[in-house]
C-alpha cells in the first residue's frame, strides 16, 4: 500500500478526514481555533466533493442540538467547537450521551474565559469530562486526523452508542503544519463503514419516542446504562485501535507509555505536551536519569487499571494538568491518584499545573519537573511558570 505524506495543519487534517468519511450531516458554529475545520469542510461542500448536509447554525448550542436530532433521525453527524463554545454546548453534552447519540466532535482545546483568551489549555475539555462522552486526546496532527476516523467506530459500536469528543491542542496542533500520512479514502470508508442507526426517528412506520421524561423510578437506571456503555467503550476502543493498526501500521493504546517500564519517575500529561515531554525524557535519559512519560489517550473512560499498573513501584509521579481546578486538586491529578488507590503502596504523586491560556511549555520546563522530583524538591501542588 502506497501512502503519500502531506504537510497539513490539524484543522485541515480533520476536515480532510471528514471529507473522506463524507458524513451525512455536519453542523457547526465558528469559534477560534476550530473555525478553519468547518471553513475547509464548507469548501468541500461547495465544490460537491462531499454529499453532506452542512448547516451553519446561529450558536454552538444549536449546532450540537441539530447533530443530536440528525443522529437520532439516522444520519452520521459531526461537529466541532472549542472553549466557551463547548461551554455553550454544555447543556446538550449530557443530552447527547443520555439519548445515546453517536455524534463525533472535534474539540480544539482552548482556555475558558475570563479573561478571554483564545489559546490552548484544557479547560474546555475538563469542564465537560463528566458528561458521558468518550474522550480522546491527540499528541500531534497525525493523531488528530486518526482520532477523527477512529472516534466514529467507537461511537457507533452497538455496545457503546455514545458521543465521542476528540481533542487537539488549540493553535499548537490546529494551526501548526506538520507532516502526516493520510489514509486512502477507500480505506477510510471501509474502516468506518455505513452508519447503521439504532431506532432511527425517520423510520416512521416504527415510530419511536426519543427524549421522554423520566421520573425517579427509572432515571437512575437510564443513567446507569450510560455508565455501562462507557465502560464497554474501553474494550471497544482497544479493538478499534488494533483494527486501525492493521490498515495504517499506527498502533495506539488507551494509555500511551514512553520509556516507563524501567523508569523511577514518570510524568503524566495530555495532548501535544506528550510530544514535548518525550524530548525531555530522552535528554534526561542521556544523563542517566530513569524517567518516562505517559498519556491516557483514552481519557474517558479512563484506563484506571493500566494507570495503576504503570505507576506501581515508582519513586515519583508528576501529573501535569493544563487546567486549574479552583478549590481542589486538578482533574488529571485526581484521576491518576484515585487510579493508584488500588495499589498496596502508592508512589509519591505531585500535581503540576502548567500552560494555561497558551503559556509556552519548553523542554527545559518539563526537564525541571523530573529534576524537581529526583531532587525531592517538588511540592504537592506546583505551578509551572507562573509569574508571582
Amino acid at each position, binding site marked *: 500500500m502506497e501512502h503519500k505524506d502531506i504537510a497539513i495543519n490539524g484543522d485541515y487534517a480533520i476536515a480532510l478526514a471528514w471529507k473522506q468519511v463524507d458524513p451525512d450531516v455536519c453542523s457547526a458554529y465558528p469559534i477560534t481555533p476550530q473555525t478553519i475545520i468547518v471553513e475547509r469542510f464548507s469548501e468541500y461542500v461547495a465544490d460537491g466533493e462531499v454529499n453532506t448536509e452542512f448547516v451553519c447554525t446561529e450558536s454552538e448550542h444549536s449546532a450540537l442540538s441539530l447533530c443530536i436530532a440528525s443522529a437520532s433521525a439516522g444520519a452520521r453527524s459531526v461537529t466541532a467547537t472549542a472553549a466557551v463554545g463547548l461551554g455553550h454546548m454544555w447543556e446538550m453534552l449530557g443530552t447527547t450521551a443520555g439519548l*445515546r447519540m453517536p455524534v463525533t466532535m472535534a474539540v480544539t482545546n482552548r482556555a475558558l474565559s475570563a479573561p478571554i483568551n483564545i489559546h490552548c489549555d484544557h479547560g474546555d475539555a475538563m469542564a465537560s469530562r463528566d458528561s458521558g462522552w468518550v474522550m480522546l486526546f491527540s499528541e500531534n496532527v497525525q493523531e488528530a486526523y486518526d482520532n477523527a476516523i477512529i472516534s466514529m467506530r467507537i461511537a457507533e459500536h452497538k455496545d457503546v*452508542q455514545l458521543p465521542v469528543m476528540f481533542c487537539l491542542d488549540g493553535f499548537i496542533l490546529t494551526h501548526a503544519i506538520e507532516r502526516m500520512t493520510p489514509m486512502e479514502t477507500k480505506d477510510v470508508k471501509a474502516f468506518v463503514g455505513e452508519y447503521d442507526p*439504532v431506532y432511527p426517528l425517520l423510520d416512521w412506520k416504527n*415510530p419511536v419516542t*426519543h427524549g421522554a421524561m423520566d421520573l425517579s423510578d427509572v432515571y437512575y437506571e437510564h443513567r446507569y446504562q450510560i455508565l455501562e456503555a462507557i465502560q464497554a467503550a474501553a474494550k471497544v476502543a482497544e479493538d478499534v485501535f488494533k483494527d486501525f493498526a492493521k490498515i495504517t501500521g499506527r498502533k495506539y493504546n488507551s494509555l500511551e507509555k514512553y520509556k516507563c517500564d524501567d523508569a523511577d519517575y514518570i510524568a503524566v500529561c495530555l495532548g501535544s505536551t506528550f510530544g514535548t515531554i518525550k524530548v525531555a525524557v530522552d535528554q534526561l535519559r542521556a544523563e542517566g536519569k530513569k524517567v518516562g512519560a505517559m498519556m491516557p489517550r483514552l481519557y474517558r473512560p479512563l484506563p484506571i487499571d493500566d494507570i495503576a499498573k504503570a505507576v506501581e513501584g515508582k519513586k515519583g509521579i508528576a501529573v501535569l494538568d493544563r487546567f486549574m481546578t479552583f478549590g481542589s486538586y486538578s482533574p488529571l491529578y485526581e484521576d491518576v491518584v484515585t487510579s493508584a488507590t488500588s495499589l498496596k503502596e502508592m508512589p509519591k504523586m505531585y500535581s503540576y499545573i502548567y500552560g494555561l491560556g497558551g503559556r509556552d511549555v519548553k523542554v527545559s520546563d518539563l526537564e525541571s519537573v523530573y529534576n524537581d522530583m529526583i531532587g525531592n524538591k517538588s511540592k504537592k501542588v506546583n505551578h509551572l511558570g507562573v509569574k508571582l
Partner: protein
Amino acid sequence: MSLVPGGRVIEPGSALKFLTGDWRSFRPVYDDKKCSHCMLCWMYCPDETILVKDGKMNGIMMTHCKGCGLCAKHCPKKAITMIQE
C-alpha cells in the same frame, strides 16, 4: 431492569395504558338520540376520547375522559351533559 437504551419508548401510543379517567369529577353523559354526528365534540376534545365509528360519534372513552366539559359546552344539540361523578 431491561430498558431500551437512551430512554427511548419504542411502543407507540402506549399512553393509552395510562387511564386518566380517574381524574374526573364531572362525567359526560351522551344521548345518541339527540346527536347529529357533527363531530364538533371530537374536534375540540383535547384528549382524543370521542370514539368514532365510520365517521360518526360512537360514545366517549370513559377510561380516559378527564371530564373537562368542552364537548358538552359546544354540542349544538345538547346531546352531551355533564353530571357530578
